[in-house]
């Protein structure tokens, strides 16, 4: 069920670079070849395999993530898209071992070949040095009574034993890279003296300072206003490519993920329902849910008489039925087969889809079609 098992370890070429990442995404625009014939398939940097997380909700252990499998290769950006409660952030927290107490976890997470779930103490700290996280709300994720300089250099000074002077110099340089010119002065300021967009750029700079291999970006622009969003996204994207970092980019914005990421995984109710080359996700989805999401996005060119919506309401993972397709109750294409068992994630046209009728529906899920008729036959 893991996508990496299918296409994976056959060839271990050279490690991915940012250039390769760019080439790959450009190649994806024009021609997309199947997983078997994929060029330069390197061993994944991060591999999540069959991750299931159960949490205590209203007195019972309920699954909030079900059988989540994904892989991020070095230098690659993978988008993780879904509604609120679909489990995107929970996936990131599981990867960073930040799950709430009492969480029951099964499945495997491997980073650079090491089993993340069994790390502890210094090993865990070392792993976390290699994985930087950028949070949704920068203001909440910085100690408000410490100066920016303290915040940015702390990891360098305490974890990597970089001398303070050197750490501050690097921090000021990095601020320049994220487009903050008067770095020296900013380092002496307190978080409350910076605007939200500025602070998020500081967070990005701080995340890059420790030279991680993987960035976990959990809706990094959601708390910013629209003009700042574009700026911060551009900086994040540029630097990621420049440093050759892999990124797991979490967002609820399908278009944004498509613009930034090489591949995008769509989550619904704690499951991954589709993984697809980003360029193809919007126009040629494999799963009815992705199609419905794409159709629900209003078109800026025309005034909609009525905004398209997915019938029903989004389910949290723990509300979703266990033994049928989680999206079936809201799906215009649902048939009896959908209610018989939870569909497996199957490979199709270079992507993966968790839809029992995926092959049936091939070519019938384009957004312009899904918009018009709620049923296909």
């Amino acid at each position, binding site marked *: 069920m893991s996508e990496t098992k299918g296409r994976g370890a056959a060839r271990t070429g050279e490690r991915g670079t940012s250039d390769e990442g760019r080439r790959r995404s450009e190649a994806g625009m024009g021609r997309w070849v199947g997983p078997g014939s994929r060029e330069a398939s390197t061993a994944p940097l991060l591999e999540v395999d069959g991750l299931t997380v159960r949490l205590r909700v209203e007195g019972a252990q309920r699954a909030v993530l079900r059988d989540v499998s994904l892989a991020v290769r070095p230098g690659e950006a993978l988008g993780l898209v879904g509604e609120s409660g679909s489990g995107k952030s929970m996936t990131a927290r599981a990867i960073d071992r930040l799950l709430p107490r009492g969480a029951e976890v099964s499945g495997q997470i491997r980073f650079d070949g090491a089993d993340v779930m069994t790390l502890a103490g210094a090993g865990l700290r070392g792993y976390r040095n290699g994985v*930087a996280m950028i*949070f949704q709300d920068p203001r909440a*994720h*910085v100690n408000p009574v410490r100066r920016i300089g303290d915040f940015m250099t702390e*990891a360098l000074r305490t*974890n990597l034993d970089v001398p303070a002077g050197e750490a501050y110099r690097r921090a000021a340089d990095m601020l320049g890279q994220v487009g903050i010119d008067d770095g020296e002065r900013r380092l002496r300021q307190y978080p409350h003296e910076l605007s939200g967009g500025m602070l998020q750029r500081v967070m990005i700079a701080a995340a890059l300072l420790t030279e991680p291999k993987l960035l976990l970006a959990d809706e990094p622009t959601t708390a910013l206003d629209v003009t700042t969003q574009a700026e911060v996204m551009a900086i994040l994207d540029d630097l990621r490519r420049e440093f050759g970092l892999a990124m797991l980019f979490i967002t609820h914005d399908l278009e944004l993920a498509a613009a930034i990421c090489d591949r995008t995984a769509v989550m619904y109710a704690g499951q991954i329902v589709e993984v697809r080359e980003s360029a193809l996700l919007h126009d040629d989805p494999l799963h009815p849910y992705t199609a419905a999401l794409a159709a629900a996005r209003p078109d800026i060119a025309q005034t909609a008489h009525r905004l398209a919506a997915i019938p029903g309401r989004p389910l949290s993972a723990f509300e979703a039925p266990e033994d049928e397709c989680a999206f079936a109750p809201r799906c215009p294409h649902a048939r009896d087969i959908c209610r018989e068992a939870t569909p497996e994630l199957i490979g199709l046209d270079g992507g993966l889809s968790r839809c029992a009728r995926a092959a049936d529906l091939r070519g019938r899920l384009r957004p312009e079609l899904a918009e018009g008729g709620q049923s296909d036959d």
Partner: protein
Amino acid sequence: MSTAIPLVTVQAPRGGRAVGLLRGTGAAGIASAAVILAATVVAVVGPALAPFSPTLPNLALAFVGPTGAHLFGFDYEGRDVLSRLLAGAQSSMLGPLAVVIGALVIGTLLAVIAAWRRGMVDAVISSSLDILFAFPGILLAVLAAAVFGAGLPAASISLAIAYMPYVARVLRGAALKERSQPYVAALEVQGASATSICLRHIVPNVMPLIVAQATILFGYAMVDLAAISFLGLGVQPPAANWGVMISENQVGIPQGYPLPALAAGACIVAIVIAFNVLGERLFEQAQGAR
């Protein structure tokens, strides 16, 4: 062409946090701090200031009232009361200081460990603290005196143990709140160690509360230590100590010579009030800032 106009930037108050903290406590707070400062100076250099020997008795002068050179007169053994007050400041201030430091260090440590680990560790620490709550400080001090012999060290240690749960309980709440702040998770994700997060972030951020606790506890400790010395289980005569002075000069009160006992009592009251006022102001400030 154009001249650069320097931007006015808001600067964090210079001169450290202590001054900033104090400035917010108002006139009463500053006056209290002045009293405490004066007492501290006396405690440090007090014995040298004493114009007469604080321990050499002269029974011929017992309970003689104030004269020109002897501002507060003589005590029951004919020693200069002012000299004894000055010399006694040291043990009277040092005792509570030791109690407060002991209680704060252990209390903060336990509170932060409980807040950091939560779960089982927190449960064990919290219920142990509840058990300790059952023992009044004076009772522990009497016990300690019986086991280890009377004296300031035994009394101070037992009071430190008795006060520690109060510190730990208040700080555990504050530390728990701080622990759940997203920035702590962010630090964890950066690979910071638990010790480093606790010492560099959580403890400094609950520091105003620690300072407030310290000042309030100091007052209590002073009264309790004076009581223990009064009972004869603390500082041993003839060493000068305010609690001891009240104890030994109480015979003068029914005889019409209340000054020696009252002078020592007044010193204690003044300092306890000063610490309480300052502590309360600091606590209000710490709460208000939250």
